[in-house]
C-alpha cells in the first residue's frame, strides 16, 4: 500500500488566513495590510494569483452610486426589489453605502482605472433592473482590470501567497475555527495553517449545474468546508441563472456568458419560432431582471419553442457593427472564438447557472456563526435576497472583502494563536488521502456528470416538490458513491483526485440547495416552483440551515426584518 | 529627466545604419562603376592615388571607416548581450576587446593616409 500513511504535512502560523483570492479575498488582504502591515497574512488560492475565480471573469461591471443625480436610496431600492424583498436589508445597505468608497480604493490604492467620460469623471453604463446608469466598467472586460491590479498590489507586499493550494477542511476546536488544512495541488503536500482568524472567500458552487458560467476550478469549497465545520447558512435555494450563456455543444465553453450589458444596450431575445418571447413575460422585455429573463427562456425551451440546440437566440445585429465593436469587443471576440458572428447574426444562448445568493450566514462584520470564521463574497448569503442584480456581484466581493479585512484586523488584536487538534489533522488527512490508495472504485468524472444532470434537471431553473425530493435521494446516493471512489496515483498534480474532491464539495452544497428549495413552497426571485408558481407574502422569510452532529441539516425560518424598506402590500 | 546613455547608442546604431546605406552605395559606385578609367580598363595606381589624395575623398573614406566600425562592432556587442548565458563580466571584457579592435582598426585606416 504505497499511500497508506498520510502525506507529509507542512505547518504554518498566521494572524489571518484567507482562503480564496478573487475580489473578496484580495480586498480583505489589502484592507488588513493597509491597516496593520505587521500582521502576518496567508492567502491560499486554488489557481494562479489573480488568474482564478470569477471576479476575473466580470464583464459588465460594478454598481456604485457616484453621480449626484443618483442616490444610495435608489441603488438600495433596486437591490431590494431585485432581491424580491428577502435580502438582509442591513447587509444590502452596507453594500450600497460602501460600494462608492471601494471604487476609490480600487483606483487610488490598487491602481485600476475604469472607463471615463470626456470630462474625466467615471463612465457608468446601463444594466438590467436598475433605475439609473450606475455600472462602472473597463470596456466589457472589467474583471481583468480589477484582478490584475489587485494581483500587482499583492506582489509588492510581503503577504504570503500559496498558489494552486486548495482548502480541504477547517480546523476546529471547541466550536472555534483555528485555521485550515490545505493541499498544494502541484506538490501534493498538505499543510496546516494555524490562524487567529480565517476567511472563506472561495466563491460558490454554480458549477454543479450542467450549464454554468463560473470558472471551472470553482467548486464551492468555502461553503462545503463551512458546512462540515457546522456553520449556519441562509436561503440556500437562491441560485441565480444568467439568461445568456453561450451554447457550444458539449464544449467546456458552454455556459460562458454574453454580458448583461448587451441586453441593457437593447439586444433582443428570440425563441426558435422567431418570436420576441419576452413580450409574453414582462413589460420590461429583455431588460427585466435576470431571474425573469432566465426563467422565461427556460420555459420557452421546455415548451418546445427553443432553438435546435436547446436554447434561445440573442440578437444584437440591429445595434450596428460599429456600436457592437466599440462597446462589446470582448463579446464579439468571444463569439468569434467559437465561430459565431454576434455582429451580423443571432447567437444561441441558454440560461446558465451563475451565482449563489444563498450562503454562509454573516453579520455586518462578516462573522459566521462559528467563532474565528469569517465569510465574504459569494460564500456569504443574505445580501442579494432572492436574486442578484447584474453589477452587484463584484461590488459584493469588493465591499464585503474589505469589511471582512477590517473586522478580522480588529478580531485578531491581542489574541493568541489558537490551539489545534493533532487528532483532527490526522483524521482529516487520512480521510482526504484515502482515494489515493484505493485500488478499485468509481472514477470521479462520471459522478460529476451525474451530479450536474441531477441539479440541472431537478433543482434547476424550474423546480417542483417531487423532483426536489427525488433529487435529495439521488444526491445522497451520489455522495455515498463519491466517498467510495478511487483515484489511485500520486498526490502531486493528480487531476482525478482533485475532481473527486470537487464532487464531494458540490454534493454537500447541492444538498443544501435542494433541501432549502423543497422547504420554500412559493416562487420568489430565482427560486421558481411549478407546484407553487406565485410569490406568497407569508414567505417573506429567510430559511436558515444549521448542520447538526449527524451531518444533517436543521431548518428554521425567520421573518425578514424590514429595517429600511417595507414591501408593497401586493408582494 | 535626463536621457539615458543606452538610448544614445540605440540612436547611434540607427543613424550609422542609415549612413552606411548611403556610404556603401557611394563606395560601390565609385570603386566599381563610375570611374571613366575603370570603364575604359586602364585603372592604374596613379589614378587611385590622385583620388585619395583629394581631402574631400579622404574625409569621406575615413568617415565611412568609422561609421562601419561603430555599427559593426556595436552590432557584435548587441549580439553578445542577447545571450545572457554570457555573464556580465565576460560581456564587459568582450566590450573592452571590441573597443580595442575598433581603435586599432581606426588608427590603422587613418594612418594609411599619412603615408601618401
Amino acid at each position, binding site marked *: 500500500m504505497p499511500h497508506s500513511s498520510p502525506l507529509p504535512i507542512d505547518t504554518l502560523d498566521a494572524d489571518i488566513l484567507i482562503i480564496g483570492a478573487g475580489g473578496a479575498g484580495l480586498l480583505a488582504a489589502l484592507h488588513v495590510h493597509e491597516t496593520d502591515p505587521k500582521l502576518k497574512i496567508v492567502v491560499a488560492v486554488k489557481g494562479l494569483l489573480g488568474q482564478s475565480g470569477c471576479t476575473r471573469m466580470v464583464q459588465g461591471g460594478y454598481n456604485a452610486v457616484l453621480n449626484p443625480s443618483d442616490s444610495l436610496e435608489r441603488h438600495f431600492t433596486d437591490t431590494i426589489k431585485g432581491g424580491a424583498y428577502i435580502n438582509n436589508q442591513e447587509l444590502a445597505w452596507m453594500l450600497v453605502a460602501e460600494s462608492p468608497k471601494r471604487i476609490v480604493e480600487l*483606483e487610488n490604492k490598487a491602481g485600476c482605472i475604469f472607463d471615463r*467620460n470626456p470630462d474625466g469623471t467615471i463612465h457608468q453604463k446601463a444594466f438590467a433592473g436598475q433605475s439609473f446608469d450606475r455600472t462602472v466598467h473597463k470596456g466589457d472586460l472589467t474583471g481583468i482590470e480589477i484582478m490584475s491590479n489587485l494581483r500587482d498590489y499583492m*506582489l509588492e507586499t510581503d503577504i504570503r501567497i500559496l498558489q494552486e493550494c486548495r482548502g480541504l477542511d477547517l480546523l476546529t476546536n471547541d466550536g472555534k475555527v483555528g485555521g485550515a488544512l490545505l493541499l498544494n495541488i502541484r506538490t501534493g503536500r498538505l499543510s496546516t495553517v494555524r490562524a487567529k482568524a480565517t476567511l472563506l472567500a472561495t466563491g460558490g458552487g454554480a458549477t454543479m449545474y450542467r450549464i454554468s458560467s463560473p470558472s471551472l476550478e470553482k467548486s464551492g469549497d468555502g461553503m462545503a468546508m463551512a458546512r462540515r465545520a457546522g456553520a449556519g447558512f441562509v436561503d440556500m435555494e437562491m441560485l441565480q441563472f444568467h439568461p445568456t450563456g453561450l451554447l457550444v455543444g458539449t464544449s467546456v465553453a458552454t455556459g460562458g456568458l454574453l454580458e448583461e450589458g448587451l441586453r441593457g444596450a437593447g439586444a433582443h431575445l428570440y425563441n426558435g419560432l422567431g418570436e420576441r418571447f419576452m413580450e409574453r413575460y414582462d413589460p420590461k422585455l429583455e431588460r427585466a431582471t435576470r431571474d425573469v429573463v432566465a426563467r422565461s427562456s427556460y420555459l420557452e425551451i421546455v415548451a418546445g419553442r427553443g432553438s435546435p440546440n436547446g436554447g434561445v437566440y440573442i440578437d444584437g445585429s440591429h445595434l450596428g457593427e460599429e456600436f457592437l465593436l466599440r462597446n462589446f469587443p470582448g463579446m464579439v471576440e468571444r463569439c468569434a472564438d467559437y465561430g459565431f458572428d454576434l455582429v451580423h447574426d443571432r447567437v444561441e444562448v441558454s440560461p446558465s447557472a451563475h451565482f449563489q445568493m444563498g450562503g454562509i450566514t454573516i453579520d455586518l462584520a462578516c462573522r459566521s456563526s462559528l467563532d474565528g470564521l469569517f465569510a465574504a463574497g459569494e460564500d456569504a448569503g443574505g445580501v442579494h435576497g432572492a436574486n442578484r442584480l447584474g453589477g452587484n456581484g463584484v461590488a459584493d466581493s469588493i465591499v464585503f472583502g474589505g469589511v471582512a479585512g477590517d473586522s478580522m484586523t480588529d478580531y485578531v488584536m491581542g489574541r493568541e494563536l489558537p490551539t489545534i487538534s493533532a487528532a483532527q489533522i490526522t483524521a482529516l488527512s487520512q480521510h482526504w488521502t484515502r482515494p489515493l490508495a484505493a485500488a478499485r472504485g468509481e472514477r470521479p468524472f462520471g459522478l460529476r456528470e451525474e451530479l450536474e444532470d441531477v441539479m440541472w434537471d431537478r433543482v434547476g431553473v424550474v423546480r417542483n416538490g417531487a423532483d426536489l425530493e427525488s433529487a435529495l435521494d439521488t444526491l445522497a446516493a451520489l455522495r455515498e458513491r463519491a466517498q467510495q471512489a478511487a483515484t489511485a496515483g500520486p498526490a502531486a*498534480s493528480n487531476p482525478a483526485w482533485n475532481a473527486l474532491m470537487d464532487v464531494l464539495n458540490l454534493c454537500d452544497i447541492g444538498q443544501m440547495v435542494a433541501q432549502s428549495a423543497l422547504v420554500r413552497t412559493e416562487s420568489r426571485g430565482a427560486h421558481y416552483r411549478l407546484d407553487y408558481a406565485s410569490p406568497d407574502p407569508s414567505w417573506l422569510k429567510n430559511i436558515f440551515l444549521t448542520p447538526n452532529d449527524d451531518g444533517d441539516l436543521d431548518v428554521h425560518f425567520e421573518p425578514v426584518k424590514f429595517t429600511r424598506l417595507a414591501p408593497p402590500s401586493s408582494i | 529627466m535626463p536621457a*539615458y546613455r543606452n538610448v544614445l547608442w*540605440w540612436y547611434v546604431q540607427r543613424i550609422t545604419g542609415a549612413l552606411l546605406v548611403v556610404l556603401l552605395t557611394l563606395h560601390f559606385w565609385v570603386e566599381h562603376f563610375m570611374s571613366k578609367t575603370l570603364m575604359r580598363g586602364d585603372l592604374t595606381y596613379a589614378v587611385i592615388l590622385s583620388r585619395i589624395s583629394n581631402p574631400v575623398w579622404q574625409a569621406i573614406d575615413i568617415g565611412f571607416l568609422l561609421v562601419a566600425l561603430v555599427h559593426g562592432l556595436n552590432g557584435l556587442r548587441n549580439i553578445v548581450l542577447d545571450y*545572457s548565458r554570457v555573464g556580465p563580466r565576460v560581456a564587459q571584457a568582450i566590450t573592452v576587446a571590441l573597443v580595442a579592435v575598433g581603435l586599432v582598426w581606426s588608427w590603422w585606416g587613418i594612418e594609411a593616409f599619412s603615408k601618401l
Partner: protein
Amino acid sequence: MKPYQVKIARSAGNGAPTEVGTFEVVLEERMTVLDALFNIQRTQDDSLSFRCACRVGMCGTCAMYINSVPRLACKTQVSRLNSSTVTIGPLPNLPVIKDLVVSLEPFFEQWKKIKPALHSPTRDSKELACIPATSRYARETPQKRDCITCGICYGACGIKSSSAEYLGPAAINKAFLRLMDPRDTATEERLEVINNERAGVWRCHAQFNCTAACPKNIDLTDTIMRLKRAMLFPSGLKKA
C-alpha cells in the same frame, strides 16, 4: 464529428518533456484544443495535467505550444488548425512542472522587477483622478491593459529563448502602462529597470513574435518601440 490525432508532450516531474503521448479524439465542429484535453483526461488518461480556469479567454492559464505556435487552448478551435494532427507541448522558455503545466515564476520575477503596483502620492485620496476620455492615457492604453499574463509573449520571444535576464514583452508592457499612468510617480525607478542593457528594452530586436502571438491582440512590439523612443525625452511619457 471528426477524428483527430493529438500528440502531447508528457513529463513526470521537474524539467523538460520526456515522452510524447498519442491519443485519438473525436470532436464536434466547434471544439477547442482545451476540449480535446478534457476529453482525453476524462476518457483516456486522467493523469494528464494542464491548467485551465475560466475557459473563455480571460484567465490566461491555458497557454501552451500548439502546432508550433504558443496559444491559449481555450481560444484555439481545433478545426481552424487545418491539420488532422494536433501537437501540444508546454509553453516554451519556462520550466515544466508536469505535462503541460509550466512554472510562471520566472515570468513573474521579471514582472515584479518593473514595479507593477501603483506608486502614487494620492493613494489615500478620497477623490478619483480626473482622466478625460480624450486624454492620451484613456485613448492609448485600453487594449494594452487587457493583458491576461498568460505568458504567451514570453514563450514566443526569440530573445527570451537566449536570455534569462530579459524582462520579456509583458513586463515591459506593464511598465509602459504605469509610466503612462497620470497618477504614478515611480517613473525613474522603472526607467532604470527598462534601460538596463542586458534586461531592458534594448534587447528587443522587433521580431514581432510577441505581437503575432498575443491572444489579446496587444501590439507589444509597438509598446517596446515607443519606450525606446521615449527614453531620449522620458518626461514626454506623462504628457496628456
